[in-house]
């Protein structure tokens, strides 16, 4: 079971992502954007990690989405292979039309706008540990294949453009109806509150991650690779004192592994 962790100029989470891939028992390697795109077909799954591909020139994910490797990934996605885009990886998948999955650009991840009591209280880059609720049923999506609906995760975010907006009529309704909304921001009790600080970036309906209609392509703004081990958790979390325990982000990687096993 071999995973490609795709690296663009400016990607900065590829090594942690590869560590996480290997720690759940998958083989993997970093796949540079300028390798022959055809080589991607020999892999069983793909991660597009976070960072600032091409320095976010024009807008986050726009330049990377035009690279030949993305065309190759589109072909691999059509075969049902799992593709997980994390943070900037999510932005690239949106710009490439792989998410929500119609082949067209149906939405944007715009600049963060934090709203509280009807007023804008903050804008732009934000990093913190946040709470996430899994919205989809088990086995709906490759990256959350093993997760129960409603399960909660404490996980870090770090981005300036994660505010999901769309002018496509009924897109959000469709995402909800088809169970393509995989993660939402929530409070520690699982309540979705569409205001900062629970909704950390102003994203429509607090959406933090979505999948394509087939479920094999997932994009999410939070960083599971940064919460893979319990020792990565923040100091206020008691699990940090139990470093042998898995961190909450591990389930994303275990899910991908199980998805590949089931669909092999």
């Amino acid at each position, binding site marked *: 079971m071999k995973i490609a962790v795709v690296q663009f100029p400016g990607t900065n989470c590829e090594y942690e992502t590869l560590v996480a891939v290997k720690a759940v028992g998958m083989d993997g390697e970093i796949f540079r954007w300028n390798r022959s795109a055809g080589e991607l077909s020999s892999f069983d799954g793909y991660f597009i990690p976070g960072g600032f591909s091409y320095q976010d*020139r*024009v807008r986050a994910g726009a330049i990377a989405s035009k690279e030949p490797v993305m065309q190759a990934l589109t072909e691999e996605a059509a075969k049902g292979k799992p593709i997980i885009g994390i943070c900037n990886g999510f932005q690239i998948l949106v710009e490439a039309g792989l998410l929500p999955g119609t082949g067209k650009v149906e939405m944007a991840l*715009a600049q963060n706008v934090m709203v509280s009591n009807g007023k804008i209280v903050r804008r732009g880059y934000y990093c913190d540990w946040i709470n996430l609720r899994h919205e989809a049923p088990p086995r709906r999506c490759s990256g959350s294949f093993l997760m129960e609906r409603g399960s909660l995760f404490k996980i870090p975010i770090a981005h300036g453009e994660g505010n999901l907006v769309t002018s496509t009529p009924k897109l959000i309704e469709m995402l909800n109806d088809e169970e393509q909304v995989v993660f939402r921001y929530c409070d520690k009790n699982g309540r979705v509150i569409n205001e900062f600080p629970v909704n950390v970036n102003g994203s429509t309906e607090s959406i933090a991650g979505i999948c394509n209609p087939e479920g094999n392509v997932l994009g999410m703004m939070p960083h599971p690779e940064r919460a893979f081990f319990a020792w990565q958790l923040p100091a206020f979390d008691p699990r940090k004192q139990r470093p042998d325990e898995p961190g909450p982000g591990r389930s994303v990687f275990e899910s991908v592994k199980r998805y590949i096993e089931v669909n092999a």
Partner: protein
Amino acid sequence: MSQKINLRVWLKIPDAEAATVKNTLVRRMGFGDVLYDVLKERLFSIEVDSGDPQELAKGFAKELVNENKESYKVLIDELRFEDEYVPVLVSLKIEDGEAISTQERLRGRLGFTSVVNVKKATIWKLYLHGVDRVARAKEIAEGLLINPHKDAYEILGE
């Protein structure tokens, strides 16, 4: 009566973002036969309700332009561009937080109380061969320069 001060700002040093856009359009998107250069400007359109616009423009430029690396041009109540390229204006169609922050900073901290509105945009200057330059510019804008769910574009002088 309000007046609009347009401040066109561009880098004197090489613009890596414009170079990346040109590279992507030529090498990845098939515009190599028609596109021979891409340059970029920032545009501040600052509406004022009083004062000498030329003097105000100098004050705005002092705050918004770093003359060590940037040049600028002031246009009052007009927006003209040179003929040799197609200017594509790209701006946010959702709320522009940077424009709001700029307005608040100019009015509040910097004391330009005559400022009533600030808009920001990027001008992409597309140097194109051929007769159908506007149509190609539209293709480029829609293919790379904007995400239609948050950005709007306008071909200036069309």
